[in-house]
């Protein structure tokens, strides 16, 4: 299992732990509606788990992005910055937000797997 989920409706794929990919879930983009702006973190900046690392804004509302795990941001999705609607059309693919160098694997292991996340969404 290389993709896990947070209660804040983000996903992280750790196939490459030096550059684990982070995005928002299908449920998150649906709740937000049409995404029109993303504020992505600076490459090279280090965040603690749970810190605000960016913002995603729809026509209706702005929502904070939280770091799913601690680590340094090593890449951001410039394509998403140019076309924020990718967060709606392909949230688990081309609509990724940034990549993070994961140093504490225990933080990743603590996150939800897909069935647990699906259950959270169903009960919300």
């Amino acid at each position, binding site marked *: 299992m290389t993709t896990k989920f947070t209660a804040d409706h983000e996903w992280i794929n750790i196939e490459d732990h030096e550059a684990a990919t982070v995005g928002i879930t299908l449920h998150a983009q649906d709740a*937000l*509606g049409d995404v*029109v*702006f993303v504020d992505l973190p600076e490459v090279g900046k280090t965040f603690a788990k749970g810190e605000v690392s960016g913002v995603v804004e729809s*026509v*209706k509302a*702005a929502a904070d992005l*939280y770091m799913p795990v601690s680590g340094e941001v090593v890449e951001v999705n410039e394509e998403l910055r140019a076309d924020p609607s990718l967060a709606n059309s392909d949230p688990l693919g081309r609509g990724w937000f940034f990549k993070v160098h994961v140093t504490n694997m225990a933080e990743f292991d603590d996150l939800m797997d897909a069935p647990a996340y699906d259950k959270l969404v169903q009960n919300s």
Partner: protein
Amino acid sequence: MSTPAEASAAPLLTTPLHRLHLELGAKMTPFAGYDMPVAYPQGILAEHRQCRDSAALFDVSHMGQLRLVGDDAARALETLVPVDVADLGVNKQRYAFFTNSNGGLLDDLMITRREHDLFVVVNAACKTQDIAHLNVHIGHRCTVVPMPERALLALQGPKAVHALARLDERVSRLVFMTGGDFTLAGAPCFVTRSGYSGEDGFEISVAAEHAEALARALLAQPEVGAAGLGARDTLRLEAGLCLYGHDINTTTTPVEAGLTWAIQKVRRPGGARAGHYPGSAVIEAQLTSGAPIKRVGLLGLERVPVREGAQIVDSHGRQLGHVTSGTLGPTVNQPIAMAYVAANHANHGSEVYAVVRNKRLPMRVSPMPFAPHRYFRG
């Protein structure tokens, strides 16, 4: 990602189209005590474009509809609004607002003179207090008749007239801010050519029991798609139209809000029926000498949306005012906002800054509407 908190759990009212909204897959949200569609599955941007390009159907049945009946109704209503009601011709419609003793705004409303009454539409969140206000102040001069038994549909967009004319071709004879009685899909309706999108369009008052059939008949027209309150808000903001409770409220005067166009000459100092409405001294003084703050339109020079509550500062960081509505304008494809700023920064072209997440974003004071009005004036 954090999502906005849901409002809590008082039992919500529903409109006669509630079942239709659910059937269409609407995302519902509490608004002014009603369970209302914020968007349908196509989303706010698509619904916004639907209205700008073709025609969109909005359920605005949560708004308050009422009648003022009696020979003295128009003159009585003039004691509560700084607007010429007495000279309004039959089937003519006019924008107005209830003022308070400080010259602030209690609500904004639409008045249509009909043959036997004045037909008034007020905001959902204000309707209970408006009806009380009318009864207390002019209930002895006319009869205030709330119309909770009626639904209100708004059909807006450049092709609205084509769709509606298929139900009764005579509606195409209406011009902007006029109304009349029509039979649509078998139901007697009172229709005005008006709206809240900046586009040509109609508002249709219909008995609740006929509302769903009429809505379905309109949605069956090839030009028409359903649109929710989300698109209604982005459309009205691009059109530069105020949202009560945000851009205007009990602390803003019509002069500060840039609504003096709605105060006809006959109600201004020197006019035949000047004054004699709540707060007239304050409003008349501002009409003469100007107001210290002004509502302005702001166009964002970067991509970041600027929302209600954001502070507006000058290049030195000195506070100039605050934003009352803002979003990314889907048609203009730039951040747009309304704000109150110090009058000396209210000139078109002034550059100011909005503070968003501790960053200063440049914005330019811009004429409104942001998207041109396309009303049908005949």
